[in-house]
């Protein structure tokens, strides 16, 4: 099992803020909108540098999505910022009609996704957003794993024509991917080559998959660990290559089983290469208040849960 050294832990939302600041310097068409959550979304630096290119919308997310769609008419590249819950479920029809169906070049940037939002509880812990967004035709769905990758993804999507949902989170997590990485939309990243099982993880669960890989190595299991930062379009080629080699698959994500990464990979495998698959995801349940670590343990989203899923799927492998 490869080692993944890191010198600091940071929140992915700060990676978004850093990427947006960078875009402020390099791309004059980038504009940003926020629904009263500048601090939470780490948009301060962009706003300080480009006050004329920032729109404070207030607590009016539906209006924000419409404004963003309108700003594209005139060549702007709007980045909207609010919590993942208010970026998706609250404004689904606005995104569907004014952005996705209309083919608008809007980047929907969503922080505080999933259980790791923590103590605020289930009203704010959206676990259905990937599913809602990936069902929209032509919507790209990205869930990077750490600060550096979120920064790189933020910068990359400005040059990626079409609507994008960029999902990130609140807690600090190990920042282990390269600072100089080039983010390629739709291209999975093999973190550890292995032969016994393929673990496809996204977002915060990528680091948990690495921790699980170490535990599995101690048990003599050689796991292939792949970071699927783009849920849609899915890197079908990479996933199938790995699955055909290992003959069994575990998916891991901070999302409902219904509609998430596991669901996408299950659909792919059942069509192309039926193989046993186990999902580490929330099983048809809302979240609740607690610390991020407590919640990830209670809802089965940590390295132990991944190890258990690997053992189960390997036992099912023919």
């Amino acid at each position, binding site marked *: 099992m490869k080692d993944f050294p890191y010198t600091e832990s940071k929140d992915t939302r700060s990676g978004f803020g850093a990427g947006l600041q960078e875009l402020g310097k390099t791309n004059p068409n980038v504009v940003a909108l926020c629904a009263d959550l500048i601090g939470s979304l780490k948009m301060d630096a962009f706003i300080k540098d480009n006050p*004329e290119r920032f729109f404070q919308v207030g607590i009016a997310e*539906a209006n924000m999505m419409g404004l963003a769609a*309108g*700003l594209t008419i*005139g060549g702007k590249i709007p980045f909207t910022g609010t919590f993942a819950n208010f970026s998706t479920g609250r404004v689904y029809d606005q995104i569907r009609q004014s952005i996705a*169906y209309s*083919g608008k070049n809007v980047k929907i940037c969503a922080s505080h996704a999933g259980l790791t939002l923590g103590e605020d509880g289930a009203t704010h812990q959206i676990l259905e957003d990937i599913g809602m967004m990936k069902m929209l035709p032509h919507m790209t769905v990205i869930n990077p794993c750490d600060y550096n990758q979120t920064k790189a993804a933020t910068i990359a999507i400005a040059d990626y024509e079409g609507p994008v949902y960029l999902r990130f989170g609140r807690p600090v997590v190990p920042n282990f991917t390269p600072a100089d990485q080039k983010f390629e939309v739709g291209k999975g990243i093999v973190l550890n080559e292995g032969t016994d099982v393929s673990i496809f993880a996204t977002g915060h669960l990528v680091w948990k998959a690495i921790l699980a890989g170490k535990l599995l190595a101690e048990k003599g299991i050689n796991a292939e660990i792949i970071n699927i930062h783009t849920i849609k379009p899915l890197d079908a080629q990479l996933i199938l290559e790995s699955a055909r080699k290992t003959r069994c698959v575990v998916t891991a994500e901070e999302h409902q089983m219904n509609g998430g990464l596991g669901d996408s990979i299950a659909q792919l495998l059942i069509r192309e290469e039926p193989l046993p698959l186990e999902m580490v995801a929330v099983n048809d349940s809302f979240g609740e208040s607690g610390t991020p670590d407590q919640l990830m343990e209670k809802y089965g989203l940590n390295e132990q849960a991944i190890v258990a899923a690997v053992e189960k799927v390997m036992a099912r492998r023919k």
Partner: protein
Amino acid sequence: MAQDSSFAASAETHAPTPTRSVDDLKQIAAQVRRDIVRMVHAVNSGHPGGSLGCTDLLVALYFKVMKHTPEPFDMNGIGQDLFFLSNGHISPVFYSVLARSGYFPVGELATFRKLNSRLQGHPATHEHLPGVRVASGSLGQGLSVAIGAAQAKKLNNDDRKVFVLMGDGELEEGQIWEAAMYAPHHKVDNLIAFVDRNGQQIDGPTEKIGGLGDLRAKFEAFNWRVLETDGNDLEKLLPTIEEAVQLSGQGQPIMVLMDTQMGYGVDFMMGSHKWHGVAPNDEQLEKALQQLVVEKAGDY
């Protein structure tokens, strides 16, 4: 179907002309109304009532007031006035006006609501119909989009205006009031919005269903500059639009409350919500066309 000869051939002359007379506009409006009833009759579906009621506004904008370039169509519309239709169900009037001002062939109106058409039941960009800049149909979204487009114009130092039309029933949507609060706060003063105040919605009169109340007071309280006019009398409507354009650029968005009659121009369709989303039968179509007289008929 006969490809329109007179209007298609003269599409260029119907390009926006500030000097066009009211009489000319009335002729164009009558032709547009003929298109509307024929389009919805042909597929036995669609929304004639609101379309007929808003014909005078769209004709005034597209054939006199707005500076726009139908061909080639440019989505970004830099240097052009833009129009957004928020109440997308009145697509028949929108399509007729777009076609007759040169965005696409008038004959294509015959494909309205049919399979593989660019003229979807509600306006869409998905099939790349020139002249449509955003999908609408699910109500309440167009004002926000128009404000965004107006702000993009400001960023681009583009001094042209953005026009948007909403239905009055549509004002029951919450997003409208989010947008209504935003635009004056951000001094979006290159925006001229219209409300089609026909007082009708699907289930009956707006005052019975939603209780819209005093719209002037409401929008003034939100710090809009509010004008009122008769939306079916070009002699009154045109000066009001002119006034609205003159009032723009002064720190406030402009709201024009436009009294109209649903079904205007066809006596048996007027003033009732019954014709919101019902197509005329053969006999009713004949009756309607008899009332919509054009000197130089140019049906598609």
